[in-house]
């Protein structure tokens, strides 16, 4: 029983990081209907920039972190302007491909500039783990769970009550109508990409901090989180959170119970199988908006 509880708790805790990353995907999709396959690379780039600022330029960590957020916001806006703006109106497959191309390009830039070695990441969390019931949890994970909760609150309020948030939802619903209502679609796109990049940078720094080291494998998180986003529903903030936690728990349960039976690897496959099963019942994810198609 304790084993099960430990697995579930660990799942919730690692799942909170998935939720954080998934939030980036959802923010972009909610306003631009683009699934950004390069989100993992945003994560990685954010972490590397923070590392460089903190270690190479010897800035105090808080300053480095804030500068990283500024950099990510700029990166998001730049990406939107250069790469996504010309793709307005293109079919969804072209959008997928362009973000895949972007992810390859960013990965290559990171590899060329920083190399593939594992670099130690400064310890931003106190090392002593906190005891949550039967499971000792490293403080880094607690920080990430806390940030996810805070961000969830902020975004739900943002999309529901602020002008910018409502404008984003309007743009996602119909660009033409939004334009005719006086919403600057270009600015909305730039805003959503910046927000997503900033959220990813936070996630990247947290992940690197928890691991204590940073290398190119961080980008794989992007691909790993896509089933989370799909599970929760591409345009649902709450769905991203729930999806992340569910996936985290599923992964750990599969790892704990199935791995010994099949000799490993179940941790990777089980979430996908569950995803397909859930999609067959809810084709737009758990909380996604059902698209009504008209001819």
């Amino acid at each position, binding site marked *: 029983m304790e084993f099960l509880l430990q697995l579930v708790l660990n799942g919730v805790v690692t799942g909170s990081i998935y939720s954080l990353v998934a939030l980036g995907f959802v923010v972009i999709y909610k306003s631009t209907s683009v*699934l950004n396959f390069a989100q993992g690379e945003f994560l990685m780039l954010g972490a590397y920039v923070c590392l460089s600022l903190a270690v190479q330029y010897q800035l105090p960590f808080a300053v480095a972190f804030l500068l990283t957020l500024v950099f990510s916001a700029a990166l998001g806006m730049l990406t939107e302007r250069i*790469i996504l703006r*010309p*793709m307005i109106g*293109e079919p*969804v*497959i*072209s959008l*997928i*491909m*362009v973000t*895949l*191309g*972007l*992810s*390859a*390009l*960013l*990965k*290559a*830039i990171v*590899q*060329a500039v920083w*190399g593939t070695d594992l670099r130690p990441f400064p310890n931003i969390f106190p090392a002593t783990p906190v005891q949550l019931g039967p499971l000792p949890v490293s403080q880094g994970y607690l920080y990430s769970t806390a940030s996810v909760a805070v961000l969830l609150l902020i975004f739900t309020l943002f999309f529901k009550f602020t002008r910018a948030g409502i404008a984003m939802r309007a743009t996602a619903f119909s660009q033409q109508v939004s334009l005719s209502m006086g919403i600057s679609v270009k600015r909305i796109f730039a805003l959503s990409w910046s927000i997503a990049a900033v959220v990813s940078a936070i996630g990247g720094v947290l992940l690197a901090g928890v691991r204590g080291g940073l290398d190119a494998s961080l980008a794989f998180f992007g*691909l790993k989180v*896509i*089933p989370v986003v*799909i599970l929760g529903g*591409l345009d649902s903030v709450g769905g991203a959170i729930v999806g992340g936690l569910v996936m985290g728990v599923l992964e750990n349960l599969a790892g704990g119970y199935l791995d010994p039976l*099949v*000799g*490993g*690897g*179940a941790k*990777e*496959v089980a979430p*996908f*199988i569950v*995803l*397909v099963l859930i*999609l*067959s019942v809810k*084709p*737009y*994810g758990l909380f996604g908006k059902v*698209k009504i*198609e008209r*001819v």
Partner: protein
Amino acid sequence: MRCGDFRQSYAEDMAIFDSPLPRWLLTALLAVLLVIPFFTGSYWLDVLNRIFIAIIAAMGLNIVTGFTGLISLGTAAFLAVGGYTTAALAGKAGLPFVVVIPISGALTAMVGLVFGIPSLRLKGLYLAVATLAAHYIVEFTASHWSSMTGGVNGISIPAAKAGPLVLSSDREVYLLILVIMVGMLFFAKNLFRTKVGKAFVAIRDQDISAEVMGVNVFRYKLLSFAVSSFYIGVAGSLLAYQARLISPENFPITLAIDYLGMVIIGGLGSILGAIFGAIFITLLPEMLRLGTDALGNTWPGLMVIVAPIKTGVFGLVVILFLIFEPDGMAARWNHVKAYWKLYPFSY
């Protein structure tokens, strides 16, 4: 100089090439391809083999994604299924390649059918991610069903044989691949002149209207997955015979992304597009290698960044193509052809 259309019979209207010139050029090209293996070194022969295999698989992906509009990230998985089936049939059962290749294709078609079932309910991105699930499931099976697949160590495949004929050299395998590729491309071209092909295109364009017009959408979606997977399975089988050794590491998710890139850069929904895309994406790393080798003597530190350069150039090329040439190379080719056909009257 010919200008405009002038057709006098249904046969002429349905013809693939509407003048003798393209037919002669095609024949000449085939003749050149038949003779080339006697002049090239073994490395470039290997590259040609890989290009032809890529053409077949890209054609398969184009059928399901370009012509039917169903985004599939399962290409690597289906290649693996084709390859491992061949390894089992040719290696363990010792069957001749004339039997092994069609059976591998058929088995992959059935697997593709199963993974196409979500297409009944899922659309667009959701379907793409469901096919991603197919990829990971197949990868898991390949790594863990060690008795059949050799697990992570991979499995070797004996040379293709059929009775007394043994294709042991790269040159002989090349001829096999060439013949199969030409046959399959011809079949694909004809597929899209038939009812089935047109149903695929109707589904891509507007599936609700297609359903209303009497096209059984679900049946044709499944058929599309099946045919596409058959092509990819045959490509995987030829890959097994050519490389003589496969392992799960041969089929990473980046391979599926590469194929998607081939199809998009080449041009969705066109046979020529699959050909161009396959040639381009397969030659890209080779060109880069030649470039970095040449520069490597003057700049020894280059060896370390060759891998990121490859990835980076691939990404950059994809982005540039999509921004400046969203319809792909085939569209550009057709523009150029049309320009020359009507020269000097461009309007």
